[in-house]
């Protein structure tokens, strides 16, 4: 099928747990592949979005300039963006550093921490390493986000229901059990 809608996914400052949860839809992945074509995604290792995408699934918030760059790219090429998981929607665990100034974080990690071995006494500055942002931003503080899917990670069923609803244009029903986390 040539004009199947495209879906792209990415993991920004996340742990890939949300992607694992996506894979947890098990055999429904076959149905999904029938419904959509995967554009850029860690699943197929395509790095840049190749065509217009219907849906972009974002895992993780923005911790580095590269995260922002990827998110910008997604916003430019996807009709609908879904912030998936607590990192994307709220910053999650990475955002724990937000109360500490960036320089202090880096010094603790690379210079002063009790287990640090760093004879050069320098903070890493290799151009290969993307610069960190002053703090971790949830995605909706960077670009417009269309939907937020909570959970750490959201369950496979929740992700599945969301994708099906978006693709079929039907109203989404997420029973309480699917978005209840305590």
């Amino acid at each position, binding site marked *: 099928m040539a004009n199947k809608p495209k879906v792209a996914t990415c993991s920004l400052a996340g742990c890939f747990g949300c992607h694992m949860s996506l894979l947890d839809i098990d055999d429904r992945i076959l149905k999904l592949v029938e419904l959509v074509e995967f554009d850029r995604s860690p699943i197929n290792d395509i790095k840049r979005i190749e065509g217009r995408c219907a849906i972009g699934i974002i895992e993780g918030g923005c911790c580095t300039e590269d995260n922002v760059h990827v998110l910008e790219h997604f916003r430019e090429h996807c009709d609908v963006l879904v912030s998936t998981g607590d990192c994307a929607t709220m910053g999650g665990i990475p955002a724990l550093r937000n109360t500490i100034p960036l320089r202090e974080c880096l010094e603790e990690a690379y210079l002063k921490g009790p287990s640090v071995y760093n004879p050069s006494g320098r903070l890493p*500055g290799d151009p290969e390493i993307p*610069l960190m*942002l002053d703090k971790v931003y949830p995605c909706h503080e*960077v670009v*417009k986000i269309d939907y937020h899917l909570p959970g750490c990670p959201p369950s496979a069923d929740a992700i599945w229901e969301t994708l099906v609803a978006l693709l079929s244009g039907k109203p989404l029903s997420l029973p309480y059990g699917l978005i209840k986390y305590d």
Partner: protein
Amino acid sequence: MTDNASVSRQVCGNFGNDKGRLMDILIGVQAQAGCIAPEALDEIAKSLSMNRVEVESAATFYAFFSDKMRGRFVIRLCNDVIDQLQGADRVAAAFRAELGIEFGQTTADGLFSLAYTPCIGMSDQAPAVLINDRVVTKVSTDMVREIVQTLRTGKSLEHLKLTLGDGNNSHPLVRAMVNNNLRERGAVVFAPYTPGVALQRALSEQPVEIIKIIKASRLRGRGGAGFPTGMKWEFTRAAPGERKFVVCNADEGEPGTFKDRVILTEAPGLVFEGMTIAGYAVGASEGIVYLRGEYAYLLAYLEDVLAKRRAAGLLGRDILGKAGFKFDIRIQLGAGAYVCGEETALLSSCEGKAGNPKTRPPFPAQKGYLDMPTVINNVETHCAAARIVENGPSWFASMGTKASSGTKVFSVSGDCAQPGVYEIPFGITVQELLARVGATDTIAVQVGGASGRMIGPSEFGRQFCFDQLATGGSVMVFGKGRDPLAIAHGFMDFFVEESCGYCTPCRVGTRLLRERLGRFLEGRAEAADLDYLEKTSKVVKNASRCGLGQTAPNPILSTLQSFRSEYERCIKKNGTVFLPSFDPGKAVAVAAGIAGRASEHFGTKKGGVKA
């Protein structure tokens, strides 16, 4: 350093170790020891047989209490909207420079502390500061230098030579630099008063008749909410309870409201007479005036008026010879908390607790002070009630409009030639009032204080009354060149500061709203932020527990209505997919500095432009 524990023990003793008087005990310890230290909390808890945490909860609630030593002179500068327009920032800078400390700090010699405070009820003579319980008005930068030098050398407030204000402000027991600026006296509150006349008339009727008279006058509460006073008294009279109370709400914390201060200065007898009549009508024999801590300079004077009334047989037992009718009044000082003007928070505070609002119902008329039926009325309402009994309900109802009878005492501040207090019958239009106060080129009027509404010229033809433009008295005038959104932002600062923090929608919502409004002022807003402001305002309004949270979004909701184009003018389109509130260049700047190289994607060029 004074020994906190022994001071605490002694102060508790002075109040008979009564935990119901915790508020006065804390005020006493703070005044005598200079702070309420951890040892003081232990000692107070022991003396009053309370849990320490209960004492701590009250001690940490009020702005005027502190757990660390403060300077001998605590200087509190009002930084509310009106003062800001009148140059409070310059005054703040002068204090900083003169003392070499920031706000929130104390000088090394232990003499001075600097703090900000919301409206201290002097908006018609701004900028104003409180130095301990002394008020200094119309402060200039020159005065700052003089004040600091005098206090530094003299080390006593007595050395401050302040020009005394008009009327009773220069009474020997007041001696304050405050001015009444009483520009118009009406027929009700500021008419000549002879002690006892209204009370005599009241005592010649049956209590239920008094309630009928108040109902017939159609008097509604003057504190803001406008509840029919006669009905409130009737409920309290009908409610079962072995003791009943009459409370006068003199907390007057709504920014821009200062009419109760002038009433208490010029007509305190009338206020007490109204309370006594209320006591007779509902069957109460105890009254409490809740006087905001900022007005502590009036305390000795008011106590003296009470003493004279006792001596004249207007308070105490068998009042005016009426066998069996007794009534007396005590004054409860507050300690710097706007929310304590809310009636249930006020009662919590009178009971010696943190000023947290209670859930209503039950209403105070059923379960108020000490869970007993309680009438709470504003200062001005008590005055009006006394006059109605004196002159008859139809006399009163013939003034004002049908639904809003009588006069209203307005306190007008801001951009006008004659700010001050005006007693005028209800029904006057904004336009007419603006003309009387000498306001020209007015672009906006804030009606009812921070919790009220901001209106633009298209509404200046409307009337002040309960069903059009309701106000507890505050009218703030803003002239040409003022920015309505910046003013609204100032009011949001006030609510963020004064939320008691009990419920999340109010505690968090006020911050979210202020931050989002800030985006408009900083040119970082997008169109969707308008929708966000509206939705979040609704949540805060509907989900907050007390009137503070329920009205806190009003500065935003009313400017969205009256000054929408101002918001729209601030909306930014930046030509990228980034939100205007996100600046990638700024977000990477710190790391770029540390790494000593430019960002790969968001270099030195403007945010959002790819390198």
